[in-house]
């Protein structure tokens, strides 16, 4: 097997292992978002869009420097999207290679796509998620393949369980696998069906014609130091041209389009004369760069991107200032703890789904259009699906662009994401006089206060706003069917671009410390609320 293939497989394995390790508790010797940080499109577009360089993404800049020397090696050697497409090509690609049907104009498309995304980024709207190969492939494996494999593994456990019980292997007998479920599966499915189906048109169709990160690499690999060289032994047999997955070898086999060449070295292996080698040299014939002479189209694409951003900024759902009136904040848009203020958050979020994959309770879900087009596929807390576990801070640790700030567990407790409110006419205690109060039972911050009031035989719940972190345990566990009788909204969410959540929370008078760690004295008789009976019975007891 070629060295390139081995490295490529190893790279995919590392990518998948890191994606698997993006979970709670976070145990990984290296950053689980490493591959996402390697994407130069993420680096450049997020820099433009957020108007600040994100230090974690500098490694992508380093990769571009390497590209100046080694060419577009990333695409063939490291890119997990590239190898996935290689596999699809092998499975469904046609034997006959009709790449010549596609004109140079189509391979220019990726530059236009790149210009569009960068234009939109300059206009303040991040469309990185449409084209970033690492964002795409993270979603594909994290939000589509992983849930499917989890389901299969879970079914597998059902089969092995009787055996495990018979042979007394409790670890296996009691193993449970949570099956994550994600909204908007169709988006990922359709996108990847299209990308994989293009295998029938040409190998690496995405990489050749569409990938904006590939376009960025291409710009940096027009005259790399490591180049394809063809010596005089070449018989012009033409074997190398159809073998090239990128169509980078023109009619004259002595020439190479370096911006298209991904250094996979297939041509070296197929050449019967052994005439091809990759060596460090500035010699060798260079074919002209394809894109010259079409600057006009490029500029128009960039401007179209800016235009798209401007249109998007006039959307009804755009919220430039969170606290002012006249802006529509959809109640379901509960952002993860530590998410930057909304506009900055959306400018940085590349919709890779890493936080959603890592979320242990599956509460982080991709959003549809509730925050406008600019917020498509961004993560939201979905309490009815799962609560935000107070002891977990994984989403804040795995975000490659720091759209969700990295928070220590102690800080995370103070990152209030919303506030719960009770829908009294659905509540079992308020409306039906039933002993329920699961909300009180499960609330980790003790924000539910039970009070006895006139005309109701059981104690009824109230939300103490200052103690509510918006974690959604109450909404998740509320036994009321269909819509919960206690609901979290992003009301009073704390969104800080910088500074300590704990400090801010204390300033605001929040009481979010998880107090259970140490014994503490609470007053024996709870304070009486309005309408509460004097000398009230403790909650749950009867006279």
């Amino acid at each position, binding site marked *: 097997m070629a060295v390139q293939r081995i490295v490529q497989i190893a790279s995919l394995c590392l990518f998948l292992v890191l994606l698997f390790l993006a979970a709670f508790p976070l145990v990984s010797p290296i950053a689980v978002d490493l591959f996402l940080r390697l994407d130069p499109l993420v680096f450049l577009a997020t820099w433009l869009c957020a108007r600040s360089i994100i230090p974690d993404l500098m490694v992508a800049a380093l990769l571009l420097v390497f590209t100046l020397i080694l060419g577009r090696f990333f695409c063939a050697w490291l890119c997990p999207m590239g190898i996935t497409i290689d596999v699809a090509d092998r499975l469904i690609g046609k034997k006959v290679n009709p790449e010549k049907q596609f004109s140079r104009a189509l391979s220019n498309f990726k530059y236009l796509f790149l210009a569009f995304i960068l234009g939109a980024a300059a206009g303040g709207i991040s469309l990185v998620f449409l084209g970033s190969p690492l964002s795409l492939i993270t979603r594909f494996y994290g939000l589509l393949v992983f849930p499917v494999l989890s389901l299969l593994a879970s079914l597998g456990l059902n089969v092995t369980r009787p055996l495990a019980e018979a042979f007394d292997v409790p670890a296996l007998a009691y193993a449970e696998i949570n099956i994550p479920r994600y909204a908007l599966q169709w988006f990922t499915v359709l996108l990847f069906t299209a990308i994989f189906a293009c295998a029938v048109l040409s190998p690496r169709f995405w990489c050749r014609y569409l990938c904006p990160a590939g376009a960025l690499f291409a710009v940096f690999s027009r005259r790399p130091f490591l180049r394809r060289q063809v010596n005089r032994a070449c018989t012009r047999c033409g074997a190398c041209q159809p073998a090239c997955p990128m169509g980078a070898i023109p009619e004259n086999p002595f020439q190479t389009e370096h911006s298209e060449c991904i250094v996979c070295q297939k041509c070296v292996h197929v050449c019967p004369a052994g005439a091809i080698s990759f060596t460090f040299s500035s010699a060798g014939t260079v074919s002209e760069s394809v894109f010259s002479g079409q600057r006009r189209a490029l500029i128009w694409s960039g401007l179209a991107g800016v235009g798209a951003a401007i249109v998007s900024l006039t959307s009804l759902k755009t919220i430039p200032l969170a606290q002012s009136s006249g802006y529509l904040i959809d109640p379901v848009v509960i952002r993860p703890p530590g998410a930057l203020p909304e506009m900055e958050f959306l400018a940085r979020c590349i919709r890779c789904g890493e936080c959603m994959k890592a979320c242990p309770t599956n509460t982080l879900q991709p959003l549809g259009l509730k925050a406008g087009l600019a917020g498509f596929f961004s993560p939201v807390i979905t309490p009815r699906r799962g609560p935000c576990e107070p002891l977990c801070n994984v989403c804040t640790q795995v975000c490659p662009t720091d759209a969700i700030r990295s928070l220590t567990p102690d800080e995370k407790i103070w990152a209030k994401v919303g506030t719960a409110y009770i829908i009294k006419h659905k509540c079992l205690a308020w409306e039906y006089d039933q002993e329920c109060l699961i909300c009180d039972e499960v609330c*980790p911050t003790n924000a539910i206060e039970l009070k006895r009031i006139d005309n109701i035989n059981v104690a009824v719940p109230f939300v103490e706003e200052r103690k509510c972190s918006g974690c959604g345990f109450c909404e998740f566990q509320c036994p009321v069917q269909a819509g919960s009788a206690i609901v979290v909204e992003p009301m009073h969410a704390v969104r800080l671009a910088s500074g300590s959540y704990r400090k801010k929370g204390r300033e605001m008078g929040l009481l979010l410390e998880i107090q259970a760690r140490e014994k503490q004295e609470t007053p024996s*008789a709870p304070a009486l609320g309005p309408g509460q009976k004097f000398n009230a019975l403790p*909650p749950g007891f009867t*006279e």
Partner: protein
Amino acid sequence: MRRMLDRRQFLKTSIMSAMWLTAGGAGPGLPKKLIAAGYPDIAIAVGKPEQATGAALDVLGGMQRFVKPGDKVLIKPNMSFPGGVLSATTTNPEVVREVVTMCKRSGASSIRVLDHPLRRDELCIEGVREACRIFNDDMVHGLYKKDFFKAVSIPDAEQLKETRVMRDYLDSDVLIAVPVAKTHGSTGVSLSMKGMMGLVLNRSVMHWKYDLSTSIVDLCTLLKPALVIIDASRVLSTNGPGGPGKVLDMNTIIASTDMVAADAQAVRMFEWYGRRMQPRQVKHIELAHQRGLGRMDIENLMVKRVQV
């Protein structure tokens, strides 16, 4: 209720008389244990958690009275919350470990320590799992999935006529409940009876479809522990079941074969929200007593206290 008491009394008297007759006939040739039979109904031991657990069991005749060699034992502590020992929201891991140790000594063939936690199990069961690691047996688990529960009908139920209970319960010979003593917002207290909800899959139906206290009693007509050991080493006196609340250091272990009596004893012994409560003020205890599951009139029972 009257009839039940009479029957119990009758049984007790007959067994006791039978025993005395046998003892009289066989004389000193009989083992000591049998002569000393007629154990107290409730044992209360005060001391460090582990020692007190052992002492309470000694009062009741030792674990070998409940666990026979070869028995499969299911231990049901409260492992539903991530609070840790000081929060008093879950059973003290030392108490659970001591119970497991005693079961091992009695020759149990398999021991499982299971619960259906409210939060993610790695957060909730870790304390008990760590404490039980010495047995090297991988016995502590939190179960959530449907596959671990089997649908059963509850013939004596008034409302909860069927539910899914842990398959391990159905497979076991002996069930030992080891709840922590704490308040509960909707049921007053959460002790051994309320704790049986940790062995079922769908608890929410007990809240929204049925009367919670009635369905707890329904459940307890099916899930009857052979032995109840209430961990009152710390008592969560307010804000239960999740806390944080006022924690009382009581250093007490209550043991009984009667889950209603054990729960009633705990209700009477401790302060709840700064008040003294009667067992009848806990609806599910009162209902259980009325339905003959056990006795809440502990003033009429034989209670033995020891200090270690």
